[in-house]
C-alpha cells in the first residue's frame, strides 16, 4: 500500500450547493486485487464461491472468467486483476484483509495527483483515451503500468474499479439533462452539470459508475482496497 495525502475533493457531478469536501490522508493498494488473492479469499470464505454466492450479492456472471469455484483456468491468470466481481464481493474481500474499499473522493484524489504541470494532467487524459481506443486485449498483469506520483499503478486505462460509495454518483442516465438543477429525479436535485466538461476520461469513469448496480460483475471492473490507518 502507499500513503496518499489528504486534500480537498470537488465532486465531478456536484449537486446544487455542494462544496468541495475535505479528505483525510489514507492508504491505498499499489495495484488492483489479483485473481490469486481473490482465490485465497474464496477458499477461506465459502459463501463467496461462485456456486454459493446468493443472487442478492452477485449476478450470474460473477467470476465467470474462472474455470470453477476454486480453479482459475486459462482465462484468468493469477497475476491479472480479478474482474467479474460485484461490489458486495469486493467489500467483503477488503474487510477480510482488514481494509475497506476507497471512497470515490479518495480514489479520485489518488488517481489525479494535484499538479502544477498541465501537461501531466493532459498526459493522464491522453493515456486514458488512448486506452479506450485500443481493442480489448488481454488484461495486463496487475502493477504492470508505470506508477503515478503517489506510486500507484494501473489507475488509468486498465480496468474500472469499484469504490465504496459508487451509488453516491447521481449522474443521470441521460446526461443532457444534467444542466437542470431542478430535475426532480432525486430529492435535493440531480447533479448540476459536470465540473469539468472537457475531461472526457473523467466523464467516462462517472458515466460508468452511473450505469452500475451493486450486484454487477463485469469484464472490465475490478477493485483495490484502502485503509484509514497505516497497514
Amino acid at each position: 500500500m502507499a500513503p496518499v495525502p489528504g486534500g480537498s475533493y470537488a465532486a465531478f457531478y456536484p449537486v446544487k450547493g455542494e462544496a468541495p469536501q475535505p479528505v483525510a490522508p489514507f492508504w491505498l493498494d499499489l495495484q488492483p486485487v489479483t485473481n490469486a488473492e481473490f482465490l485465497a479469499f474464496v477458499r477461506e470464505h465459502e459463501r463467496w464461491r461462485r456456486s454459493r454466492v446468493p443472487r442478492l450479492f452477485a449476478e450470474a456472471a460473477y467470476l465467470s472468467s474462472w474455470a470453477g469455484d476454486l480453479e482459475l483456468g486459462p482465462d484468468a491468470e493469477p497475476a491479472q486483476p480479478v474482474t467479474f466481481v460485484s461490489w458486495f464481493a469486493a467489500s467483503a474481500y477488503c474487510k477480510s484483509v482488514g481494509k475497506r474499499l476507497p471512497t470515490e473522493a479518495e480514489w479520485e484524489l489518488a488517481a489525479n495527483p494535484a499538479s502544477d504541470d498541465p501537461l501531466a494532467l493532459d498526459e493522464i487524459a491522453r493515456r486514458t483515451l488512448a486506452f479506450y481506443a485500443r481493442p480489448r486485449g488481454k488484461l495486463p498483469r496487475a502493477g504492470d503500468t508505470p506508477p503515478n506520483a503517489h506510486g500507484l499503478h494501473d489507475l488509468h486505462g486498465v480496468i474500472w474499479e469499484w469504490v465504496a460509495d459508487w451509488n453516491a454518483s447521481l449522474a443521470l442516465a441521460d446526461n443532457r439533462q444534467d444542466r437542470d438543477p431542478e430535475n426532480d429525479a432525486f430529492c435535493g436535485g440531480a447533479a448540476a452539470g459536470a465540473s469539468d466538461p472537457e475531461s472526457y476520461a473523467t466523464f467516462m469513469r462517472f458515466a460508468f459508475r452511473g450505469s452500475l448496480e451493486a450486484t454487477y460483475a463485469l469484464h472490465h471492473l475490478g477493485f483495490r482496497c484502502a485503509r484509514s490507518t497505516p497497514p
Partner: protein
Amino acid sequence: MIEAQLGVAPQPAPPVNRAHAAKVIVKLEVREVVKELADKVQYMFWTFGGNVPGPMIRVRKGDTVELHLMNHPDNAMPHNIDLHAVTGPGGGAASTFTAPGHQTQFTFTALNEGVYIYHCATAPVGMHIANGMYGLIVVEPESGYTVVDREYYVVQSEFYTHGAFREPGLQPFDMQRAINEDPAYVVFNGRDGALIGDRALPANVGEKVRLFLGNGGPNLISSFHVIGEIFDNVFPEGGTVANHQVQTTVIPAGGSAIVEFALQVPGTFILVDHSIFRAFNKGALGMLKVSGPENKQIYSGLEVDEVYLAERSAKATEALKGSKDGGDSLEARMARGKAVYMGTCSTCHQLEGQGLASVFPPLAKSDFLMADKQRSIHTVLAGLQGPVEVNGQTYNNVMPPLANFTDHEIADVLSFVRNSFGNQGEAVNDAEVAAVRAELKQPAAAGHP
C-alpha cells in the same frame, strides 16, 4: 408482434408494406470493435450492430415499438440510445442506460412520420457519437412511400483522429480536434471509400432511385450533391414537404433528408459533400455506378478536343497572313514555318526550341526529332504520348494532334524546326505529309482555329 427487419448500410430496411399499425420488436446490440477507417488505418468504433452507421430501423406511423438494447459483455463502456422519433424523456436515453453485459428495454409509439437519427447519449455524448453510434429510424407515413426501383441508405459523419487523413495505424480519438470541429475524416457509411470501386452503389438507366440520407455529425452540416444528377424530389430534413429540382441539399448534423431522382444516362455519379475539400481531402466521396444504354441527346460525351491558342492564335494568324506567297523553297518554308512555330509550337517547346526540363522535350539539337523524318510528320499529325527519350532524358507527356493544320503548314513548320535551333536536315514537302495523313486515315485538315 413483428420482429423488425433491419437494414445494414448501404441497404435500407425493406418497405413496411402494411395497412395497419402493429407492435414491432427492435433489437440493437452495442459492440465496441476495431475496424478499418481507411486502408491500413484502424479505429476503435463504438457501434450499434457492429457497423457504422447502425442499422436502419423502418416502422409505420402509429406502430408500437419495443426496443431492446444489449451491451455486449466485452465492451468497456455503458451505452444508451436516443431516437429522434421518440416522444419521451431523452428520446429513450433515460430508459436505456445499459452497463456492459446487460440489456434494457423500453416501448414507444411512433407518433410522427419522418426520417430520424438515433444515437447514443451516454456521457461524454460527443465522444459516443464521434466514435460511430448513430443510424436512421424511418417512420413511414400510413400510406407508405411511393414505390421506386432502388433505395439506398447513406449516412455522412466525421472522425477525429490524432493522425492525419490516411495516416496508417490504429488511430485514437482526438478530443481536442473534436472540440475544434476539425475532423481528419468526413465520410459516408463509416469509412473512407465505403462507397467506392467495388463497393460503389449499382443502379440501371431508367430506374428511379431514393436515398435515405442521414448526418451523424457530430459537428458538421452536409451539403449533399450527386455529381451529374438533379434531385427530382427532396424531402428536406426528412420532413413531409417536398422540394423539387434541387442540385444540393443541406443535411443538418443530427438530421436527415430523402432525395429521389431518375437515371437517364449511364456512368459513374459521384456522391459528395459539396464543402468540397471534404470530398477530396477527407473522404466525403461515394459512387453510384449506373449501367445501361447511352443517350447521346441527353449527354453526348466528349465531342471535341483540340488545341486552344487563346491570345497566341492572333499572332499565328497574322504571321501566316504575311507568308502566303514565297513558293516552296527552303527559305520560303523556313519563313512561313517560323510563323507557325512561334504561334503554336513555342507554347510548349519554347522560343529557342529548348523545351521545358522534365516536361516538354527540346527540339534544339534533338536526336529524337532528327532521327526519323516520317516519325516527326506522324507526331505532328497524330500527337504523341508515353515515355520518349530525347538527348538522354526521358519525357512522358502528351503532345496533342495538330491535324487541323494543312499539309502545307505542317511541311513548313517541320522544315523550319529541322533547320533551326542547331538542327540541320532535309526539308519536308506537302506530299510527304499528305501520305502520312492518308495512312492515318485522317480527313483533310479543316483549317486551323
